[in-house]
């Protein structure tokens, strides 16, 4: 009898890389729809232009590196990076802003390090941070959500993107900005006096976050990622916000619900923190990784210079992920924790 020598692992994951990427793309749909509902077509224009630039950059990088272009383009990883960055950028961004961000993300953060699977930093967040420190003015220009002002139409969105000098948009401080700048009002008074706040968090933002939560929950159900990192992040962010809530005084950083449903919290928790390449690998490592990101998000949001912090927190912890993995290696079956045989 001929025995085929097949080495372990014998169980195969049913999901290939393109499949995972496509699922992630699908899971962003509810969030994009809600973003478009509240902020107009700007997000969609961002998205299309970002995808186009990303495919061109990816193809160029692959050509330079003499890799098969079609094979790697079909894995959709460039599209995922583009989508995540496009969602994070303010709607009605000019074309060059998006192009610079995508080029930095794909060329610098991904291909300089060896392409998909070798990048130590999340490309989308690296691109976002480069843009944020380079163009702070353009990167904080969020239009008012539906209900607080006119939402620009499709033509105006295209004009804002491709002919920015002729476009004159209205921008408004985001709820996180307001909460950060507040120094004299009780949280309840701030809520009552500024129209940007809604039921639990910012008007519009709470629904955006809930939509990304829904998309993330679907990915969790499909087992694209495990629950450890995102839930640890949300739990530690909520815990920090609860501890420093200070009864809603003027020095309060905002309620836990406000932080969980503001800015990029849910988007970050389910689409950025779960990046399999740049996060910690072991189960305990993922818990530590997520919890540290949650803590950093709160600290930078409340004490730092920038209103939102998910990108910074993720990049810092990307740095730390190999160290975390080093200290959280699981026990090998049949051995003691220190590695000696039983």
């Amino acid at each position: 009898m001929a025995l085929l020598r097949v080495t372990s692992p014998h169980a195969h994951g049913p999901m290939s890389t393109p499949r995972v990427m496509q699922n992630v793309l699908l899971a962003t749909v509810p969030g994009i729809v809600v973003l478009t509902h509240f902020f107009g077509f700007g997000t969609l224009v961002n998205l299309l232009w970002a995808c186009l630039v990303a495919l061109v950059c990816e193809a160029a990088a692959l050509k330079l590196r003499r890799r098969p272009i079609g094979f790697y383009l079909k894995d959709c990883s460039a599209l995922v990076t583009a989508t995540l960055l496009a969602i994070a950028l303010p709607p009605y961004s000019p074309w060059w802003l998006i192009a610079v961000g995508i080029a930095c993300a794909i060329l610098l953060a991904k291909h300089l390090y060896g392409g998909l699977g070798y990048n130590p930093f999340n490309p989308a967040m690296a691109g976002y941070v480069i843009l944020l420190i380079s163009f702070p003015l353009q990167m904080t220009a969020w239009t008012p959500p539906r209900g607080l002002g006119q939402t620009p139409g499709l033509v105006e969105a295209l004009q804002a993107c491709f002919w920015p000098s002729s476009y004159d948009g209205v921008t408004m401080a985001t709820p996180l900005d307001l909460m950060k700048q507040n120094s004299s009002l009780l949280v309840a008074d701030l809520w009552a006096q500024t129209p940007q706040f809604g039921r639990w968090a910012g008007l519009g933002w709470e629904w955006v976050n809930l939509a990304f939560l829904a998309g993330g929950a679907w990915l969790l159900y499909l087992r694209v990622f495990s629950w450890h990192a995102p839930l640890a992040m949300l739990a530690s962010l909520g815990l920090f916000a609860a501890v420093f809530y200070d009864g809603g005084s003027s020095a309060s950083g905002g309620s836990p619900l406000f932080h969980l449903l503001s800015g990029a919290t849910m988007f970050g928790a389910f689409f950025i923190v779960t990046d399999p390449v740049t996060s910690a690998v072991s189960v305990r490592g993922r818990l530590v990784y997520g919890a540290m990101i949650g803590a950093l998000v709160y600290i930078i949001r409340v004490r730092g210079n920038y209103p939102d912090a998910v990108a910074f927190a993720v990049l810092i912890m990307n740095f730390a992920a190999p160290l975390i993995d080093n200290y959280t290696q699981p026990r090998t079956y049949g051995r003691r924790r220190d590695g000696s045989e039983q």
Partner: protein
Amino acid sequence: MTDVSYRELSLNGLWKNNPAIVQLLGLCPLLAVTGSVVNATGLAAATTLVLVCSNTAVSLVRNIVSDAIRLPAFVMIIAAAVSCIELLMQAFAYELYEILGIFLPLITTNCVILGRADGFASRNGVVPAAYDGFVMGAGFGLVLVFLGAIRELLGTGALFANMDLLFGPDAAQWKITVIDDYPNFLLAILPPGAFIFTGLIIAGKNLVDARIKRRRDALKAAPVKGAKRVRVTGHIS
């Protein structure tokens, strides 16, 4: 080392053994002050002057100073040269002196200078040592100015701004605005941009080297037309 080839020295300083992008020495000023062409030029000139002075002085005293105390002695010489340059800059380019700030006195600790003093000047005659200081400084300075130009162009959309700090009031008009209404790309001016662009310059140099090598290999392998048997020793070139 008695016979020194000046061609070899120049090639080493400017390209093959360039202090900034091959030896990766003196990175601290390289990263810190190359935000604009004028800053880079100022520091490049100061570093080159110091290198020439210190190499010359070290070469002069190389037979007097004993091996055991050579490093402190060299550092004293370098520090003296740096102090002179600093005073000169205070006198003739005070505003630039203010901008360069701590990085002028820090030239003392620039490894390029101590490296050349110990590695070359202390073993060679005065003229080769001075020449080596000059080409090494030039190699370092060219990279500095090139990096400054890239960063200034990408960061502010203009080139040669504020050159009057170094070259007198006439140079104020040297500024070339390449792109009007340019949104400043701050990353290029900030230190991370310096790291990224230094890396890209090094990559570019390696690319050029690889091209040259490939071309040379191709030339070597190509059969010489018409020549069937040539009795020579060594390579046909």
